[in-house]
Structure formats: structure tokens, C-alpha cells
């Protein structure tokens, strides 16, 4: 009987492990083209910058052509960097489409949004097309792989980036860092609150 009890407990633990899933809500816009990697380690990197630091400059290729450097916004615009882990994954596919309907909030706070992933341009092109027409540039940190993510300290050990937000003011100083649990979408209100604290 004792042996039987142990067996049931073991079975319970295995079952809970097998059946536990990350909850996300996926738009039908992506049909069945989303790869679900399951629940990942929430955070798998160590930040290399902190609030108050000058944000490391970078120059990355943009999905719609050309390159963008962080420095080109200095003294002109507040900048939000939104790193998402990978194209064609559940939570990421449901993050930028939300930012796409709040351009007015970014405009009101004199801010530009730069979306960044470690995917290559063709992948990002196909993926972002499914989101409709995005008002903000999407940058590819593919090669050297994840170099910008690494300089900010948000490159994970598996080559993905964290789900992270950096708010940088017009002086180029980092005002907010949010490294979210990779399995969850960050709340929009947190970003909005940080934007509203910036000098316009």
C-alpha cells in the first residue's frame, strides 16, 4: 500500500509537469504558423547596463531597408527599445501588434519605438507582415548574432534575446529597464507610466 502511495505521488508530479503550460493568447492572424517552445527559464542573462548609464550606441539593419543607429535620435527623440526573443513564437507575436495601436502615446511623449530581435531580415519580413503595417521600425540583431542584445546584457544562453524594454531619454541616458519573464507579455501601462515620466 505504501509502495502504491509512492507510485501515485510520482505519477502526480510527472502529470503536473507534463500538463503544465504557459498561458498566452494568440491572434488568429498567425493561423497555425506559430512554434510553441513551451515554458522557458524566465530570465537567462545578466544585465550589462543600468539605469543612469549612457545607452550603448548601435547600428542595425531595418526590415524595410537601410540601417538605424541609436545615436541618430540623440537630442531629438526619446527611444524605447523593445527586444523580443524570436519571431514566430507565441508571446512575441502578441506584443508588437499592441504597440502598433498606441502610436499616439509614443507621439505624445516624443518617443520612437525600435523593435529588435535576433532573427534575420527575411524571417522578420514574413513575420511582421502578419501583424499588418507597423508604424515603427523593426531591426535585425542577427549578425554578428545578438551583438546588441549582448552589449545590453539581454542575450540568453540559447541565442535568443530576453523580452526586455529599455527607455532612453533624448540625452541618450537609460531611464528604465524592464527585463520581463520571457513567457509573459509586459503590461502596457508600465511602459506608458515610464514614458510619461520623461522630459518631453
Amino acid at each position, binding site marked *: 500500500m505504501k509502495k502504491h502511495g509512492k507510485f*501515485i505521488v510520482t505519477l*502526480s508530479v510527472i502529470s503536473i509537469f507534463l500538463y503544465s503550460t504557459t498561458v498566452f*493568447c494568440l491572434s*488568429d492572424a498567425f493561423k497555425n504558423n506559430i512554434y510553441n517552445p513551451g515554458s522557458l527559464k524566465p530570465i537567462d542573462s545578466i544585465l550589462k547596463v543600468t539605469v543612469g548609464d549612457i545607452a550603448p550606441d548601435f547600428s542595425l539593419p531595418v526590415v524595410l531597408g537601410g540601417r538605424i543607429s541609436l545615436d541618430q535620435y540623440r537630442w531629438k527623440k526619446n527611444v524605447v527599445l523593445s527586444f523580443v526573443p524570436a519571431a514566430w513564437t507565441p508571446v512575441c507575436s502578441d506584443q508588437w501588434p499592441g504597440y502598433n495601436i*498606441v502610436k499616439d502615446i509614443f507621439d505624445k511623449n516624443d518617443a520612437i519605438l525600435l523593435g529588435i530581435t535576433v532573427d534575420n531580415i527575411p524571417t522578420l519580413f514574413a513575420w511582421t507582415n502578419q501583424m*499588418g503595417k507597423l508604424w515603427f521600425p523593426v531591426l535585425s540583431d542577427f549578425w554578428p548574432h545578438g551583438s546588441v542584445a549582448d552589449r545590453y546584457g539581454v542575450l540568453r544562453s540559447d541565442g535568443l534575446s530576453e523580452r526586455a524594454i529599455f527607455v532612453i531619454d533624448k540625452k541618450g541616458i537609460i531611464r528604465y529597464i524592464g527585463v520581463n519573464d520571457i513567457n509573459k507579455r509586459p*503590461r*502596457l501601462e508600465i511602459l506608458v507610466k515610464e514614458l510619461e515620466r520623461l522630459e518631453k
Partner: protein
Amino acid sequence: MVATVAIFLALFHYLAFGSNMPPVKGGELPEIKITVPQNATDKSYLGLESSRFFKIPQIKARVVIIEIFSMYCPYCQKEAPEINRLYSIIEGNPDLKDKIKLIGIGAGNSYFEVEVYKKKYNVPFPLFPDDDFSIHKCIGEVRTPYFLGVKINDDGTHRIFYSQLGKFKGAEPFLELMLQVSGLKLER
């Protein structure tokens, strides 16, 4: 031993997923408690009494159409104006306005996010946040937009007459479909 394992797994699967399948036509809604809106217009539209929570069959209507949406869903965003038009058509028809009510549930959306969506698309009907995905989980973690049609009977019982992912082909055809499959068309 094999039988024990089989029974255990079947039981576990039922407990884990039994209530987590998308609602089926002819069935009942899972037990969903929603906070009564503070907004007087929404409260009056739904005919709700002043308590803290309500269940969907308590809405004063013959038919309730539920849209499971998300602020982050491109299709929901695209279809929002047409869903608003569905609301306007219903409200503009004296024969339907007290019989059919429309609500939206923002899967995984906070109150703030739902309000952003409501303001962005001028959504005239009540939208409710489902911040922790608890409602979304109850209804089988469906993709969005997902539509449910619920018929409320005079005795307070209810049944689901429509449960479908997407396929919103426009306000008029959707309303016609709702009238037909709910049986409201025959009652008119």
C-alpha cells in the same frame, strides 16, 4: 497496475482539460464571474443589478454575443469597426435592441489595455479585462477573435448556440446568422 495508470491519467486529463475545451454548441458556459462595470451606461445596457460580480446568463437579454478579443490581436483590431457597426445595427432596431446584447472579453488584457482598445476603436459596448487569463483558460484558451452566442431562456437557464473562431464576415451576415441559429428569427 496498468489499469490504475490508465484511470489516473484519464482522471487527471479530465481535471486538467475537462473544463478547458472551447465551449460547445448546445452546452452551457463554464462558470465565469465578471466584475459588474462601474460605468453606468454599460451597467444599464446589460441590465445588471448593483452587485460586485455577475454571470453572463444574468444579462438582461434573450441573446448575448461574446467576443473574446485582445488589444494585441491584429484581426480583432481590423474587425473592431465592423463589430461596432453590428452593435449600432442592433441598437438601431427597436425589435432587437432589448433582445441582443454584445460584450467583449479581453483575454490576458489588463483594465488599462482594454481601455486603450476601447478608446482607440470607440467601442460602444462593454469590454471586460481578463488580466490573469482565468476566463480565457476556462473557455479552452481559444485564439482570437472568438465568438460565442448564448441564448438565455425565460427560466434563467441558457445554452450556447454558436461557438466559432473568427469567420466574422461583416455586421449584416453575422447578425442574420445569429438570428437564425439562436432561433430568435422564428420568434419575431
